């Protein structure tokens, strides 16, 4: 029974890792096609993509959109969570529902709705319109994480600060935010990874300036190429570095 478990675990890992391993191995292919046989080790495709200005611009756009939209989503989500956790307002259940609602709607539909609205109001598509879409999808996430992290123990600390004469802004800045720091950081980085990797909203809501997933999408049109493997491997490297950093600096301390 135990042995069966280990075998299943090994097979599970094999399935999960198979495409990634193939992706990374053939990014070093010394040839024109990223499929077997492996013709030798070469870094030419990495050189090619690192000197591809279109790709590097798209990378920069992605980072810009991801950090700014996540920052906005986090700020608004945190303030809203604070308000709903602290003040009794009429209809608060309804408002919580409204703030969470975008989570249950497909990105494609959110993108189509925004595209319709922007078309009708004559707003030009750009990185800003894509960023607006990314705030819409990440706001519910940031709100939900911040809201779930707020507990009694923190409310007491806030009350104490208020009794000692702190203004609401001071309470938010010196008490609530630091006490929630791990949750807020997790929400922020989760948002960044979602926005960074998001395709359909960025695809439909940008025009001349595009983000990295959209640029990769257009690379796919020309068929299989080790260059695409190289881009994918680099994105993977960046993402897992972020995950491990989060794991080491954030979640270790919480325990």
């Amino acid at each position: 029974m135990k042995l069966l478990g280990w075998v299943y675990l090994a097979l599970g890992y094999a399935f999960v890792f198979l495409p990634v391993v193939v992706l990374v191995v053939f990014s070093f292919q010394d040839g024109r096609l990223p499929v077997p046989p492996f013709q030798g080790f070469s870094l030419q495709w990495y050189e090619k993509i690192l000197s591809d200005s279109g790709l590097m611009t798209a990378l920069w756009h992605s980072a810009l959109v991801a950090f700014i939209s996540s920052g906005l989503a986090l700020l608004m989500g945190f303030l809203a969570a604070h308000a709903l956790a602290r003040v009794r307002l009429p209809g608060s259940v309804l408002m919580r529902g409204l703030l969470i609602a975008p989570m249950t709607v497909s990105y494609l539909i959110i993108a189509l709705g925004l595209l319709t609205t922007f078309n009708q109001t004559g707003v030009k598509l750009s990185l800003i319109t894509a960023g607006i879409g990314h705030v819409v999808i990440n706001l519910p996430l940031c709100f939900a994480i911040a809201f779930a992290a707020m507990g009694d123990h923190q409310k007491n600390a806030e009350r104490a600060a208020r009794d000692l004469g702190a203004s609401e802004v001071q309470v938010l800045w010196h008490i609530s935010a630091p006490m929630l720091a791990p949750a807020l950081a997790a929400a922020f980085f989760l948002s960044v990874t979602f926005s960074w990797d998001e395709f359909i909203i960025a695809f439909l809501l940008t025009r001349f300036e595009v983000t990295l997933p959209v640029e990769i999408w257009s690379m796919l049109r020309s068929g299989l190429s080790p260059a695409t493997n190289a881009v994918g491997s680099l994105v993977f490297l960046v993402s897992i570095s972020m995950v491990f950093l989060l794991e080491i600096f954030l979640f270790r301390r919480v325990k």
Partner: protein
Amino acid sequence: MSIASAERKLGWGLLAPALLWTAAFFVVPFLAMLALSFAHMEGRAIVSGFDPGNYIRAFTDWSQLKALINSVEITVTVTVISVVLAWPLAAIIAWQVPARFQRLALLMAVLPFWTSYVVRSYSWLLVLGKNGVINKALMGIGVISEPLALASTRTATVIGFVHFFVMLLTLTIYANLIQLSPNYARAAQDLGASRWATFVHVILPLTLPGVITGAFVTFVLCIGDYITPQILGGNTELTLPQLIMLQMGRSGNFPMASALSVVLMGVVTVAYAACSRWLRLDRL
């Protein structure tokens, strides 16, 4: 001004940005799309009005209806296979892997989650394609002489999806299993239940909320996804999101695309109603 009303004012002030943003960029666009779904095309011009024609077409025109059926079939298949594969994986990590390695085991099991979504689908092409790893390997050991047509099929789409959702479900099911006290199983066995009976009547029902929540998220993400079927399934069997993109792109038929989107939301709502009893979306 009383303290209560000052508090309330402050509360509204803090809520306002998030509420206004959601209203302006989620509620209003949704209503605009809903209105547009009742418009129709005359030539290349959109004529607004109250015309249910798009919805009638979505359910009576075979090429449109087929996409809905394909989407539902693929999504249900993917959800079932993913749950069946992920449950044992989560259980092994929760029960068999030593406690101090569990976090690492889990992190490893979901590592490819962090590659770019577009690239992950693409990398399955390298595995399943005509000259891909699987065909080359099978031909190398002489099992087959001609490459199998794996890419650009429904099977490829399903494999690509299952790969993604096994990772997601392993996480949610693990989170559920780890909270289960071993005392439940002990109690059942003390009362004479066999190991199988304990599993079926005690453990499985207790993990149902986690499983259903994960399955619902899988359903929602899967049925709304454009990338995986477009890259791996090709254009032979369209799914609903592919059809929506086609309507928008090729023919500029935004009213039809909107109507199909509303249908897509309708399917998700039905799925939500079907499993709302067990859903704990607030605990995700």
